[in-house]
């Protein structure tokens, strides 16, 4: 690279001298002038000429080297020495700049993803206590113990065995607030240990660790190419031969057919065509923009699996959001207690006793609430548990030393038990658990799932970008509507079984197909956002599947097209914004590059453009398009 710059600078100097010579001293013989220009030309372009010759021998004709060689040699032949040298010189300067830009872009992405750990401190039992040995992360098997010092990258996924510290997860999640870890916490590779020394029990080998997965994903992201990207490559393959053909026609036809047409004049125009026929600006700036968008997104903690998803995302019309785990925390908790003829504590004790052995999330929440109040010790000898799916639980238990038969469940269970609940008729959001003790109604408990703090912002952000929001949930319609109203969601479908979600998405997709405006090439896209754990079929069916909370969940990374690394739904409108911005830049580049090229072609054809303009249409446009594509990488910090 450095040598190339030196060579080009020298060629530039000779070229400048030659130009001066031409302007100021008319007495210099033509041949000497030619010699100086030729020297500059060869200095700048001998490599291009060599490549062109070699490629012709290999049978590939329309490559840039060949075009530039023909254009410049042609210019020499018709006596336009300065132009000939300029074409070659600036073509090379442009190439240099392109290389520089691509290198810079490659580097900034790798810096962005600079989470690959270099080494791990393996702890081994030695003769006199523990020994620390520095090894490469690949060599550490699962189950071994490693030491992570402050300031080091955590090399492998594991569980903290000893020590407390603060961990910076920004590289994975974009989250700037460090996380507390202590003995028993799970920690992920790629994070940075900030304050304390940690001993970590490794749970996964390096190849399966979070850091490898993410690196793999980001590096391969550019493999799933967007339609625009494929279009532009196909276009380039046609564009060059067509322009070259036009150049040939332009050089030959008018002098033969039109009276008074001068061959060298038309040849000059044709040579302009050759210079402009280079498709580089287009071909390079489009993937570079997508690459920037993907890079910017990953810095914000959003992994995009391919540029095609950015493209689809930018065309989104409907965002289907799963409720539990996406908009809500996915953790149930006891909201209110409504006892009838008993104390609040007794009601909770009875319910917890009945649900004690159930793994259902609602049962878990009852148990947790009872535990928090220190009530579990009053419950004993649980027996004869009968769990009826879709109804509730009946069981025998001793509560406060008194044996009783407890029924806890929904209205249907109460009806079966012959009990008429006296309260909780029109309860709004949440799930109601009715409790009966020894055949008499004891009241009900309201259990609800909390909305995430930024759920409202997420929905508002989507709506602001003109995207219709639909919420799908298995919850009761009351709970679903209450949440939807609070968030401002457009449409709700509740009481869905997992299979129903696919059906609903298909329905919406069919609606999009039907509602497609005439004249548009594609329908609006449907985005589905789920927690990635039990939504795999829906994630696959949607145009773009986004999984939440990808951190630590392999299933989510596998199934989704876009992974939001932390749990924040507000990242959904953010990725939408990034997608749209990237697509705008891509379109700008295409329109700009093609526009300038066509303009210069037209001006050349009618004889108004000189070769300097042609050089700009080729090299200058590439450079500007590349600079523009850098914008895709910057993501607004909020």
């Amino acid at each position, binding site marked *: 690279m450095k040598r190339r710059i030196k060579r080009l600078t020298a060629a530039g100097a000779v070229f400048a001298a030659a130009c001066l010579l031409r302007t100021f001293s008319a007495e210099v013989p033509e041949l000497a002038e030619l010699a100086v220009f030729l020297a500059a030309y060869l200095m700048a372009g001998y490599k291009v000429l060599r*490549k062109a010759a*070699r*490629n012709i021998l*290999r*049978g*590939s004709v329309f*490559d*840039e080297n060949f075009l530039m060689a023909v254009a410049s040699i042609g210019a020499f032949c018709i006596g336009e020495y300065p132009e000939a040298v300029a074409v070659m010189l600036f073509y090379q300067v442009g190439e240099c700049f*392109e*290389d520089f830009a*691509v290198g810079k*872009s*490659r580097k900034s*992405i790798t810096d962005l993803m600079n989470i690959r750990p270099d080494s791990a401190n393996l702890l081994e039992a030695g003769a006199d206590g523990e020994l620390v040995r520095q090894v490469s992360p690949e060599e550490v098997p699962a189950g071994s113990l490693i030491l992570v010092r402050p300031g080091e990258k955590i090399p492998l996924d594991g569980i903290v065995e000893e020590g407390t510290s603060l961990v910076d997860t920004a590289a994975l999640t974009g989250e700037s607030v460090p996380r507390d870890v202590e003995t028993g916490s799970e920690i992920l590779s790629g994070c940075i240990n900030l304050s304390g020394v940690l001993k970590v029990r490794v749970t996964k080998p390096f190849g399966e660790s979070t850091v490898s997965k993410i690196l793999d994903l980001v*590096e*391969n992201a*550019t*493999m799933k*190419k967007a339609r625009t990207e494929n279009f532009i*490559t196909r276009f*380039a*393959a046609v564009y060059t031969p067509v322009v070259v053909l036009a150049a040939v026609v332009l050089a030959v036809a008018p002098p033969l057919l039109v009276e008074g047409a001068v061959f060298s004049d038309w040849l000059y125009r044709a040579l302009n065509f050759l210079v402009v026929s280079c*498709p*580089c600006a287009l*071909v*390079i700036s489009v*993937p*570079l923009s997508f*690459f920037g968008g993907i890079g910017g997104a990953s810095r914000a903690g959003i992994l995009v699996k391919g540029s095609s998803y950015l493209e689809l995302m930018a065309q989104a019309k409907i965002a289907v959001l799963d409720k539990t785990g996406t908009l809500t925390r996915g953790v149930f908790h006891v909201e209110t207690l409504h006892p009838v003829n008993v104390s609040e504590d007794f009601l909770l004790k009875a319910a917890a006793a009945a649900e004690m052995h159930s793994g259902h999330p609602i049962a878990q929440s009852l148990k947790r609430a009872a535990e928090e109040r220190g009530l579990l010790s009053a419950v004993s000898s649980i027996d004869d548990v009968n769990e009826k799916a879709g109804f509730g639980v009946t069981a025998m238990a001793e509560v406060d030393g008194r044996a009783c038969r407890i029924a806890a469940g929904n209205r249907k269970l109460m009806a079966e038990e012959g009990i008429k609940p006296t309260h909780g008729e029109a309860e709004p959001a949440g799930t109601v658990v009715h409790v009966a003790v020894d055949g008499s109604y004891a009241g009900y408990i309201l259990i609800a799932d909390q909305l995430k703090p930024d759920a409202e912002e997420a929905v508002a952000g989507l709506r602001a970008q003109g995207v219709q929001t639909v919420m799908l949930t298995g919850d009761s319609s009351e709970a679903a509507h209450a949440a939807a109203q609070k968030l401002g969601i457009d449409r709700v479908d509740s009481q869905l079984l997992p299979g129903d979600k696919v059906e609903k998405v298909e329905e919406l997709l069919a609606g999009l197909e039907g509602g497609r405006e005439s004249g548009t090439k594609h329908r609006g896209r449907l985005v589905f956002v789920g927690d990635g754990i039990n939504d795999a079929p829906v994630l696959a069916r949607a145009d773009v599947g986004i999984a939440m909370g990808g951190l630590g969940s392999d299933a989510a990374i596998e199934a989704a097209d876009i992974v939001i690394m932390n749990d924040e739904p507000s990242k959904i409108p953010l990725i939408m914004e990034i997608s749209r911005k990237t697509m705008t830049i891509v379109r700008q580049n295409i329109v700009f590059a093609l526009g300038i090229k066509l303009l210069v072609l037209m001006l050349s054809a009618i004889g108004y453009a000189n070769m300097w303009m042609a050089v700009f249409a080729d090299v200058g446009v590439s450079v500007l398009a590349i600079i523009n594509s850098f914008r895709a990488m910057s993501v607004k910090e909020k």
Partner: protein
Amino acid sequence: MKKTYLLEGLCCANCAAKIETGINKLDGIDKATISFLTSKLVIETAEEPSKELLKKIEKVVHKVEPDVEMKEI
């Protein structure tokens, strides 16, 4: 079966596109993709690519970009 190769010295986006098209035309290749920005070639084949196939791929690469070196990763 998926294999990834590093194309070292790949410096022209249009050439990358040409190489990609060329490799896709070869017999025995289900799909080939080149990411210009990571200089990586990924080929999908039904079975382990044979030596002849790899030679053919290399030939396509060198026809367009003689200075590029292909390395398996």
